[in-house]
């Protein structure tokens, strides 16, 4: 194989690995949106929160991973509950601008609290996987990417099973489908709203841990990655779990390929903007995305 094929394969593989994390974040976003029609404009801060808390439990507190992880997830669940109970429930039925802005407010508070507690320096993230690259055919792959992708796959499979078979998962899908019908069948819609936030914070936290170990450190630039959720969910369809997963991988690959091939031509930074160009194109042509429900209002 020629060098350029290897180059392309490498871009695609890295893209898939990063895209897996986008899928996780998008999953959290879509869950909240499906269940409660709330758009979370601070997905990056949830990721940041997870990354910092897991860093704090593993490194400064020197807890072993099997203790640190449950603690981190517990804190994440708590955060989800606080946000839902404290902020979003009182705003049910308010205009969309209020809901959008309140999630910005929450994100700002999270960012401020993290910054105040741990400062803005880059924190070295614990090395969870070996750094030695191995070869998949001719393509060098770093184990971090591989393991993070495997982790994402396991998580996504787990969540799919959860939604498919568990009673709670079914209640969540029912609520997403039709709140009134779900309520009349005995589903506590309030509980589902709270649960969807908890799942979202947990998923974002796991995304944060994976991103932290892929990048080898946590700092506030992680939060900027969170905004990539929007191209992902618009591409996949705002209310589609499958769309979030596939969209995440597609956007990951796309930004890597565009970065790899267009950066030399356009002079850098294409990776950051390409997903948003795709976003605008999709919004104009097919606003409901690949798998979303076709019920967008035309104006």
């Amino acid at each position, binding site marked *: 194989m020629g060098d350029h094929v290897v180059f392309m394969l490498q871009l695609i593989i890295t893209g898939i690995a990063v895209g897996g994390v986008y899928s996780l974040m998008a999953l959290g976003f879509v869950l909240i949106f499906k269940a409660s029609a709330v*758009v979370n404009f601070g997905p990056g801060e949830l990721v940041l929160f997870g990354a910092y808390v897991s860093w704090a439990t593993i490194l400064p507190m020197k807890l072993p991973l099997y203790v640190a992880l449950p603690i981190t997830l517990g804190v994440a669940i708590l955060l989800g509950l606080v946000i839902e109970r404290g*902020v979003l429930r*009182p*705003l049910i039925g*308010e205009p*969309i*601008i*209020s809901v*959008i*802005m*309140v999630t*910005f*407010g*929450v*994100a*700002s*508070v*999270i*960012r*401020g*609290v*993290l*910054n*105040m507690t741990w400062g803005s320096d880059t924190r070295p993230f614990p090395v969870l996987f070996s750094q030695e690259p191995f070869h998949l055919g001719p393509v060098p792959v770093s184990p971090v990417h591989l393991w993070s992708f495997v982790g994402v796959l396991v998580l996504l499979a787990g969540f799919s099973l959860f939604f498919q078979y568990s009673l709670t998962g079914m209640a969540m899908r029912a609520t997403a489908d039709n709140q009134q019908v779900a309520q009349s069948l005995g589903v506590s819609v309030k509980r589902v709203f709270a649960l969807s936030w908890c799942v979202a914070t947990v998923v974002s936290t796991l995304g944060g841990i994976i991103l932290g170990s892929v990048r080898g450190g946590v700092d506030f630039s992680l939060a900027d990655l969170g*905004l990539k959720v*929007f*191209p992902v969910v*618009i591409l996949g369809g*705002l209310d589609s779990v499958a769309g979030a997963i596939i969209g995440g991988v597609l956007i990951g690959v796309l930004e890597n390929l565009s970065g790899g091939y267009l950066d030399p031509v*356009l*002079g*850098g*930074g294409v990776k*950051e*903007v390409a997903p*948003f*160009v795709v*976003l*605008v194109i999709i*919004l*104009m042509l097919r*606003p409901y995305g690949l798998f979303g429900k076709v019920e*967008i*209002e*035309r*104006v």
Partner: protein
Amino acid sequence: MQCGGFRISYRGDERIFDTAVPIVGVVLLLAVLSVVPWYATTYWLDVINRIGIAIIGALGLNILVGYTGQISIGHAAFLAVGAYATGILEIQLGLPFYLAIPLAALIAAGFGLIFGIPSLRLRGLYLAIATLAAHFIATYGIIHWERMTNGVLGLMIPTATVFGIPLDSDARIFYLIFALVVPATFFAKNLFRTRVGRAFIAIRDRDVAAGVMGVSLYRYKLLAFVISSAYAGVAGGLMAHHSRIVFPDAFSLLVAIDYLAMIIIGGLGSILGCIFGAIFMTLLPEVLKLGATSLTGVYPNAFGLIASMRDIVFGFAVIFFLMYEPQGLARIWLRIRSYWKLWPYAY
């Protein structure tokens, strides 16, 4: 007996000032403002100048979001276009600022027209996401059009000169800013007594109904974007002359969020609210700074915490207003006023 707000004609109902008292108030306020530079310290003058710029920017955003109901997270991009257009026109073409700023407003308005196109097909959440994307694309363009914008390093803006007087001090810039804030405010206030303004409000309240009544959604939505971004263009031009340097980081997404917070904390769909919101958001970090200064004795690290304190207070302020006072400071002001109107007889 006639009492309270008794109006017998539409003209009377539409008046900006119902009685002589607010006219006197406004004249007094303008008189006080015109002598501010002689008494204020450089520090406070700088703060007041930033408030003035923020008022113009917030007016523009409120016309779009508060009055027309088109959610935009791309306001920082309009400000950036205004600031960069001013800078480029002055540096590359050597135009004086009094031509560059109006031209920058026109250029920003043109961008608004383009940004506004998605609003013809999308609304609410989808429009918000589209403007978010537009923000990133515009920022990318600014950073990478290095020949003109000098990339991340930024542009140094030459001193503005009017009739041979260089506007090189905060006091002189103050007059430039307030010479624009006052007409901008009155234009916005007056806009909503005209056909155009009423069409905007109709679109916000129910776009389909507005369309049925003969409001051309196509024309008025784009017009709202154009007016809004022209305001932002002026604000951006003033920013360029106030800080004398224009660089991409000054127009990050956080700036757009700050402006949204301004109009929400001040009051959506309220001109007075823009002023209150601009004052609130500009003073917030300054008050925190003062607090930190007084705390340094007890807690030497206080200054390092200002940035994060600002984020926290800002976030809680937004959450608080949305939950307990969705119509913002303007509403609180109205309540206070109506309380005193009939004081001491509360009925």
